[in-house]
């Protein structure tokens, strides 16, 4: 039986892991975690805010992970052109995460799928709850609202060639109060490709909820679970006890 996945999402700024503990940078989360810990997949995102096309520091991050981690590696952040995609793939990424670049030019999804296969394209959707109900997709790191609902954008993305959809709740991100399960169900109900849920996990039970109630194929965790070597193993043990089929 296919296992549900637990995915570690790491954000980098100028090549430095962008996370803090007690407001000081924490560098303990190193490459060696990957083989020792039972993480199922790694996503590295570049959040460097610069217009520069060349990002050698992030290139180096991808190269390091690719040469030392023997689990799938997805890379993203600022992907707008096939040149960005080719660079990430050449550096060793297995998949590319697209977000604003695909909203600006949806054909980008098809171009990547045609060159590297649909399994290479992860469409990342940031969505915000509307006052009157429902959700809207936001571009530019959640800054720019669009007219699209997450369900229609996910479906369109799938039709254009996305192999997986990653859906993040802007409202819940960083709240540690759990994923937005309604949002996830809207998306899982609209597409037939696997959906990754992100934004808001603060306890292991949230991973279980994302999978059981959000119908996600994978639960994404960001900084809070990067503290110790035992975190991922404990999370998996918790999920297995709750009846979720995971790789342990």
């Amino acid at each position, binding site marked *: 039986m296919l296992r549900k996945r637990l995915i570690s999402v790491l954000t980098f700024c100028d090549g430095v892991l962008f996370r803090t503990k007690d407001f000081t940078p924490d560098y303990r989360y190193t490459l060696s975690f990957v083989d020792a810990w039972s993480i199922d997949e790694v996503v590295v995102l570049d959040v460097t805010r610069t217009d520069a096309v060349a990002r050698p520091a992030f290139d180096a991050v991808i190269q390091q992970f690719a040469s030392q981690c023997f689990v799938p590696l997805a890379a993203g952040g600022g992907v707008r052109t096939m040149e960005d995609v080719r660079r990430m793939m050449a550096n060793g990424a297995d998949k590319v995460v697209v977000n604003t670049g695909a909203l600006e030019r949806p054909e980008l999804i098809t171009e990547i799928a045609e*060159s590297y296969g649909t399994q290479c394209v992860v469409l990342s959707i940031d969505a915000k709850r509307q006052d009157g109900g429902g959700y809207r997709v936001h571009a530019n790191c959640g800054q720019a609202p669009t007219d699209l609902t997450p369900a229609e954008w996910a479906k369109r993305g799938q039709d254009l060639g996305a192999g*997986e959809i990653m859906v993040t709740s802007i409202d819940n991100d960083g709240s540690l109060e759990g994923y937005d399960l309604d949002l996830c169900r809207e998306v899982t109900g609209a597409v037939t490709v696997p959906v990754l849920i992100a934004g808001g996990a603060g306890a292991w039970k949230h991973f279980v909820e994302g999978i059981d109630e959000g119908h996600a194929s994978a639960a994404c965790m960001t900084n809070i679970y990067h503290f110790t070597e035992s975190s991922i193993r404990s999370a998996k043990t918790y999920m297995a006890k709750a009846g979720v089929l995971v790789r342990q």
Partner: protein
Amino acid sequence: MPETVGIIDYGLGNLRSVASAVEKVGFTPHITGDPTELAQSSHLILPGVGAYGDGIANLQARDLIAPLNRMVLQEQKPILGICLGAQLMAKSSSEFGDHIGLGWFDADVTRLETGDPSLRVPHVGWDEVDLVRDCPLFDGVPAESLYYYVHSYCIVGKDSDAVIGECNYGRRFVAVLSKGHMCATQFHPEKSQQNGLTVLRNFLTHFSCCANG
């Protein structure tokens, strides 16, 4: 010149992660699309992700099909196909129109229809290999190990003697083929942590021109 593992560069797939894994298990990878260089390597790996038609077209465009046929079928150089590379070793595929494969295994490639909306396609993630016969590829790998798969099409075997392992995702499909010096895995050994690395090491140590064929 020390013996190298020739990783066939035909413009598709993550060659770098395959090369990293080969290095990790103690061998020297050489990524190349040059038939002369490939002929000098001790082993061949045909990686690949992407579309079947592109795979065959790229092999053709790089004039690799005849040299590969010679190396694999006549010289019996050990070869491991991974994912799309495994599928290309089959006879044909229905992906985006019918395509003729390399035909080294008597098997076809067909779209993975799970018949169950909860079993989403592509089949992405960690899943089993149900071994149906012994194969040195799996020496030292614990039973019920998990491997990383990512694919929308699957191999359906005809030559049942070559089928080593299967996977079940809405339907049974071929996860591993092996016959003589030829091996093929639908999963990604280079992305399957320790178990995958063991399979890769087994291929490089247990399969050689002299010992097999």
